[in-house]
């Protein structure tokens, strides 16, 4: 059994141009060194029934032993406000905010603090192990604490506050439920003896949603809070409950109030990591690990569902104790990509304990791009980096009730999965839920990603390398371009190629990416889509931080978690998220087919339809017997039509010139339609009774000599290599590719 996790790492940047430097950030808790080798990836899937791992070493100066060290991960999001004189002001103090706790019983949590965990000094407003609000003051080696008499209610808004009245020698907590009825009222006040005259610690950051373990400007943090915080305020008087509540209710506390220490407005700069203070002290801060922004505040009233329309209703941030978006590891190896290297999928291989029972072989993936304006081939294959990120470190099979029923068989876990089960600090995928049950909406590449590398889970990255393997096998040159760059450069990146292939699962698209493909196809580009469930979700990329994407799943589509009402617009861009189908651009409009079903019982062959005999596309079916099934073998379920499949539908945008060439429409009871395919409730929706549960192969010409060919199935790519690459799927794909690289227009369609 190969150990794929004894050393882990990430490459930064994830995508690099020839001539640029890539750095490898590595960590091992057990190994002191490993043998490093840079590899070009042809096939990343170790399945012995297929091509197997195919990796070649170009030979670089970096190859050789690398010393390793342990670089721990510190998950948990928070806001850090660096120390400032206004925060050290002696005398009374009031702190308050609105709170929507999502895991009040998860253990000690801190909401607002200026607290030195190592010294037990300062103040903190938090939640104790019993889920009760507590306010704590530590000074002069002594600690004062007051606790609310009844626990907070999960996922219910509550106003909370902590007050130090040092003249009276008293501390208080305030807790007021915003919906105090039907058993939801947890309103409570409590008071306890407190210090008279305190001195606050020096050099201590104010932390929102956690507390500092140490001093300094960038402390490690602990006691992370799960849930939303809205309108946190700090005031240098001992306010009564009504006054403190009024201060928090106010969207714009008067900055001229000399006792107003800070009033953070999380509705400002929502796409960024900045938190803004409205007070005259300008105590702005920085967010760590991308907590969710653009979240409904306690004042949200349903009058809009877009934060851009009424930001003042979106003054909440949802913090998670397991957020992880920047591992912060130091680099161990650096390498400048030689100018003459081909673009491609690449990986750093790390080996140790070779020859033992438990040899280590772990990979760190990166991509060498074909830079804008420098194509070396007429063909580009897209590395679906948005999809790879969306699935990065998926724990779906570990955590989700439906996984085994969906997959129609026992779950098979890799060594990576077993590791991830124990090591949630890696951060999960946008398919997963946080420890508080809410969905992960962001994914970044500044952390080890277990399922985007050779030997990793094959879904997406591994399956796509079967297309690379096939291109290499037929001797076809190609460039690799990435989703990140298509988003950044748009149509001009695609325009450098006569033909562009999208892979087995190009599921996640930003508007700029979709616009780029639309423009490319209208401008005479040829697009081969060799997958299923493509062009499905609408995402955003971070405006400044590379390789960071966001999805809000909303309340439609095949969603492994459901977004909350009003929280389905992208914080990175302000755009709506959800399905492209719900955003007026169904996949059928772009590629002729669109997602309709999953089928995991097995994969199926297609049968040819009469339109495959159309004389205008004779070139496509040359050497193929149209009386025989297409794709009756494959590495995923024994056929080419399976896993996730797409169908033609004119009402969703499949164009009039489309030729519907082949279909796999007998998917039996294992063919389960996607949720947006059902308008009304009735039995008979599964593939054994429903002809709209199917995979379709389609072709249509576009403007200026362009064209689109789509196969409508994730399993397609893994059928290319069957029978030593001599099969109908391979022949059809080859015929289409040859013709698509030939500049002659497609005649007879107008």
């Amino acid at each position, binding site marked *: *059994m190969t150990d794929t996790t004894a050393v882990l790492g990430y490459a930064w940047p994830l995508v690099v141009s020839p001539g640029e430097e890539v750095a490898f950030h590595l960590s091992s808790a057990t190994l002191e060194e490993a043998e490093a080798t840079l590899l070009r990836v042809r096939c990343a899937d*170790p*399945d*012995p*029934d297929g091509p197997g791992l195919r990796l070649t070493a170009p030979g670089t100066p970096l190859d050789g032993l690398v010393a390793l060290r342990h670089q721990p991960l510190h998950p948990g999001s928070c806001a850090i406000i660096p120390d400032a004189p206004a925060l050290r002001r002696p005398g009374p103090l009031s702190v308050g905010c609105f709170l929507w706790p999502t895991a009040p019983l998860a253990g000690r949590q801190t909401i607002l603090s200026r607290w030195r965990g190592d010294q037990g000094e300062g103040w903190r407003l938090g939640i104790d192990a019993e889920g009760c609000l507590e306010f704590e003051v530590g000074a002069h080696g002594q600690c004062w604490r007051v606790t609310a008499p009844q626990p907070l209610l999960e*996922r219910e808004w509550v106003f909370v506050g902590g007050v130090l009245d040092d003249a009276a020698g008293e501390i208080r907590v305030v807790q007021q439920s915003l919906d105090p009825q039907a058993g939801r009222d947890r309103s409570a006040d409590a008071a306890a003896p407190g210090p008279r005259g305190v001195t606050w610690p020096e050099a201590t950051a104010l932390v929102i949603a956690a507390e500092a373990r140490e001093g300094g400007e960038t402390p490690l943090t602990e006691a992370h809070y799960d849930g939303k915080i809205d309108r946190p305020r700090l005031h240098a008087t001992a306010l009564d409950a009504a006054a403190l509540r009024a201060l928090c209710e106010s969207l714009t506390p008067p900055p001229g109030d000399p006792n107003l220490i800070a009033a953070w407005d999380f509705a400002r700069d929502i796409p960024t990591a900045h938190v803004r203070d409205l007070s005259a002290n300008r105590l702005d801060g920085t967010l760590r690990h991308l907590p969710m922004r653009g979240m409904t505040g306690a004042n949200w009233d349903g009058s809009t569902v877009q934060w851009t329309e009424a930001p003042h209703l979106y003054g909440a941030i949802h913090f998670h104790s397991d957020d992880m978006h920047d591992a912060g590891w130091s680099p161990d190896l650096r390498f400048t990509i030689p100018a003459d290297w081909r673009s491609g999928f690449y990986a750093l291989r790390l080996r140790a304990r070779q020859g033992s029972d438990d040899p280590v072989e772990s990979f760190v993936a990166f991509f060498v791009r074909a830079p804008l304006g420098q194509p070396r081939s007429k063909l580009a294959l897209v590395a679906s980096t948005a999809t790879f990120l969306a699935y990065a470190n998926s724990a779906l*099979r*570990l*955590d*989700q*009730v*439906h996984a*085994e*029923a969906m997959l*129609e*068989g*026992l*779950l*098979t*876990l*890799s*060594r990576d999965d*077993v590791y991830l*089960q*124990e*090591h*949630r600090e890696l951060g999960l995928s946008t398919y997963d839920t946080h*420890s508080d*049950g*809410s969905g992960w909406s962001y994914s970044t590449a500044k952390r080890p990603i277990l399922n985007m590398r050779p030997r990793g889970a094959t879904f997406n990255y591994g399956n796509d390398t079967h297309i690379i393997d096939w291109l290499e096998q037929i001797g076809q040159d190609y460039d690799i371009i990435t989703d990140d760059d298509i988003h950044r450069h748009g149509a001009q990146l695609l325009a450098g190629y006569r033909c562009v292939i999208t892979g087995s699962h190009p599921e996640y698209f930003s508007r700029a990416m979709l616009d780029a493909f639309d423009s490319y196809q209208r401008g005479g580009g040829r697009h081969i889509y060799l997958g299923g469930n493509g062009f499905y979700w609408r995402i955003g990329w971070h405006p400044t931080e590379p390789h960071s994407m966001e999805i809000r799943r909303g309340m439609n589509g095949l969603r492994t978690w*459901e977004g*909350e009402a009003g929280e389905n617009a992208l914080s990175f861009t302000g755009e709506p998220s959800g399905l492209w189908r719900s955003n007026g651009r169904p996949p059928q409009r772009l590629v002729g087919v669109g997602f309709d079903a999953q089928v995991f*019982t*097995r994969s199926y062959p297609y049968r040819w339809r009469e339109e495959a005999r159309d004389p205008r596309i004779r070139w496509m079916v040359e050497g193929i017997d149209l009386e025989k099934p297409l794709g009756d073998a494959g590495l995923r379920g024994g056929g080419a039509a399976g896993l996730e499949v797409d169908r033609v539908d004119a009402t969703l945008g499949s164009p009039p010139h489309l030729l519907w060439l082949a279909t796999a429409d007998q998917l*039996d*009871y*294992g063919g389960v339609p996607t949720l947006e395919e059902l308008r009304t409730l009735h039995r008979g929706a599964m593939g054994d009774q429903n002809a709209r549960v199917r995979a379709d192969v389609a072709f249509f010409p576009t403007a200026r000599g362009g064209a689109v060919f789509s196969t409508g199935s994730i399993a397609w790519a893994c059928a290319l290599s069957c029978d030593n690459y001599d099969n109908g799927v391979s022949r059809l794909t080859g015929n289409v590719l040859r013709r698509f690289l030939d500049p002659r227009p497609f005649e007879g369609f107008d």
Partner: protein
Amino acid sequence: MLVNDPEAAHWPVDPARLDLVEEFRRRPRGPHSDALQKLLHRMRWSGVGQRHVLIVLEPNRRWMLGRLPGRRGAPVETFPNRVFTDLAAAEWAVFVLRWEALTGQKLEDGSSAA
């Protein structure tokens, strides 16, 4: 927040339906009759008796029985003595465990509980 309820699958299992056991034993990967589909859904939805899984020892060749701990961060339980070289045999072995958990009845040709 809509969540999947592990207790939602409630098709009543009839311990007398040994015909379903036999159907599964003969063809663990399907296709299955309507009643067997319902039995398997009942078993798979909740992962009856704490979810058994397979751990890949060699890709697509060798698997070891394991069990999910039901709690994030806890290790996967492994059964090094229960190694399979055939997915159908693994499916059958777990079916036997789940049948006993659901009906209280051991299957005659079932191997001992892991």
